[in-house]
């Protein structure tokens, strides 16, 4: 393009100064490749490749510091007869199921409470998100102390203050108590995320719908059942998928509080994979345990995909 000379003589179009570099950056193909390379490169090298490598490792007998050979399904066969592994599968499903259900019930309740007309709304929101912000391991250590066998504050309140029990609870010493304690800690950490996400969903629901229902004489349960629940469903499905995914693959909380004990009763699949793979050195077997989680994750992802597809027709197909 040429310089346009007009009545204003000292005005020049900026592109005259462009060098070869700028012209190179104007080429769309080059630009696309240049823009995508850093992100895609990192993801392919450190995410896609390891994912494939992990599946390969699951079929080998690799140890740390020693390459392995292909052994077919041997790892999976030995896992099939491994009671600790099945215990971990059971506890992972139990932990995910119970914790997710509680997180959603309580999170929805909290979201509904926060959606009321309250003073100090933003302060409240900030406070409520704290458990979600703080590093999980560090709050897990706090729970470890709260669940201490001798000096548990919960036991102290129940036994010495309220007199409801006559002995201190051994929270982390017996299998079922430990299982429930971990679920409790997980729910504590998960509620804020669920509540704040659902609150955002609640705030998109137009108040005029409630007014109309009110004029029609709907009870508060009816308003919840017929207006809030259906309109909240799409966002609920997305949050649910994330919550299930991250609870299922949880590692930090269990590793920090019980490390799988007592007698392997609280191993999740992730902690068992870690224990066998890294300190145990059997990378192949650890990888096999990790790979066993994949089918569950695919199920959860598909669920998310179909929930999102459902959302389009619900809102007239024009929400993207």
């Amino acid at each position: 393009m040429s310089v346009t000379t007009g009545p204003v003589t000292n005005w020049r179009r900026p592109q005259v100064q462009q060098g070869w570099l700028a012209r190179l950056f104007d080429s769309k193909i080059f630009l696309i490749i240049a823009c995508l390379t850093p992100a895609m490169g990192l993801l392919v090298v450190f995410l896609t490749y390891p994912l494939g490598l992990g599946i390969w490792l699951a079929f080998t007998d690799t140890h740390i510091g020693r390459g392995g050979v292909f052994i077919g399904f041997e790892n999976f066969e030995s896992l099939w007869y491994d009671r600790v592994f099945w215990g971990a599968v059971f506890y992972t499903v139990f932990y995910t199921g119970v914790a997710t259900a509680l997180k959603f019930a309580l999170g929805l309740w909290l979201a509904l409470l926060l959606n009321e007309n309250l003073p100090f709304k933003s302060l409240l929101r900030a406070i409520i998100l704290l458990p979600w912000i703080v590093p999980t391991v560090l709050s897990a250590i706090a729970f470890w102390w709260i669940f201490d066998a001798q000096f548990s504050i919960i036991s102290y309140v129940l036994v010495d203050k309220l007199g409801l029990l006559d002995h201190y609870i051994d929270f982390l010493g017996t299998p079922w108590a430990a299982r429930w304690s971990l679920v409790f800690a997980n729910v504590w950490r998960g509620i804020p995320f669920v509540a704040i996400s659902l609150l955002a969903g609640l705030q998109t629901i137009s108040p005029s719908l409630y007014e109309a229902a009110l004029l029609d004489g709907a009870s508060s349960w009816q308003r919840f059942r017929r207006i809030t629940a259906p309109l909240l469903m799409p966002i609920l499905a997305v949050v649910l998928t994330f919550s299930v995914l991250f609870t299922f693959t949880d590692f930090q909380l269990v590793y920090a509080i019980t490390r799988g004990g007592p007698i392997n009763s609280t191993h999740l699949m992730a902690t068992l994979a870690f224990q066998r793979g890294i300190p145990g050195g059997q990378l192949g077997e650890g990888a096999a345990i990790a790979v066993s989680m994949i089918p569950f994750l695919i199920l959860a992802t598909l669920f998310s995909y179909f929930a999102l597809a459902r959302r389009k027709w619900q809102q007239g197909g024009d929400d993207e």
Partner: protein
Amino acid sequence: MSKADTADEGAALSWQSKQRRVVTVYVPLICFVIILLFPFYWMTITAIKPNAEMFDYKTYSPFWVVSPTLANINKLLFETSYPRWLFNTMLIAVCATVISLVASVLAAYAIQRLRFKGSAYVGLAIYIAYLVPPSILFIPLASMVFKLGLFDSPFALILTYPTFLIPFCTWLLIGYFKSIPYELEECALIDGASRLQILRRITLPLAVPGLISAGIFSFTLSWNEFIYALAFISSSENKTVPVAILTELVQGDVYQWGSLMAGSLLGSLPVAIFYSFFVDYYVSSLTGAVKE
């Protein structure tokens, strides 16, 4: 605002008297807040308790501290490598955040603005990458890290953290770029600006709120990361705060609860302070990302 007003009118209209509102809204809300905050209170109070009070519930009420002490914090700061761990965590979090931000800004710009054939599929691939959890990647990554000779070096973490940061940031930034009117860029194109100039002068300044929220998310996520840091780092001086507290401070059968709690408190504070400055960005992007 209008929403709050209508809620008020609704309350005046009928069904919710003041007492009932106290029972159905404030009481449960206060219970929630107390339960959600109690562990932090307990952490703080334990961190400043002398040992005599910590293990004697009969003479001292466990909920209060009679003679607060800084001994635990002092011990943590001057008798362990805690400052060193804090520095490591900070360094790794900042580096990983910068790398991920640069990579995701470029990727999000390419996907959302350059609109090429298959950009939707690239976006979908990045979304799926977000759903791949670290728990199934750490074993193969550990063997890669060994082979690359990065084991026990901060680079192992700086290079692997972007795998979960980039998908999230890209996703968030695509949403932000979408909200910037395309006409602005068209105008600039007509005026003869190059693509690079457009990105630098128009799109990026407008996307600053998005960049800030992506940055906060990346920083907190890297600060909180645990499984990679546990698997890839072995020497004490290279550990990050969450791993070091759990592996270095927990020794033997008698747990030093005072210094453990002090460590947890100090490890949580930087993120909490950082978060409190940007809480509104954080909330809006968290909810925005979920709604996307």
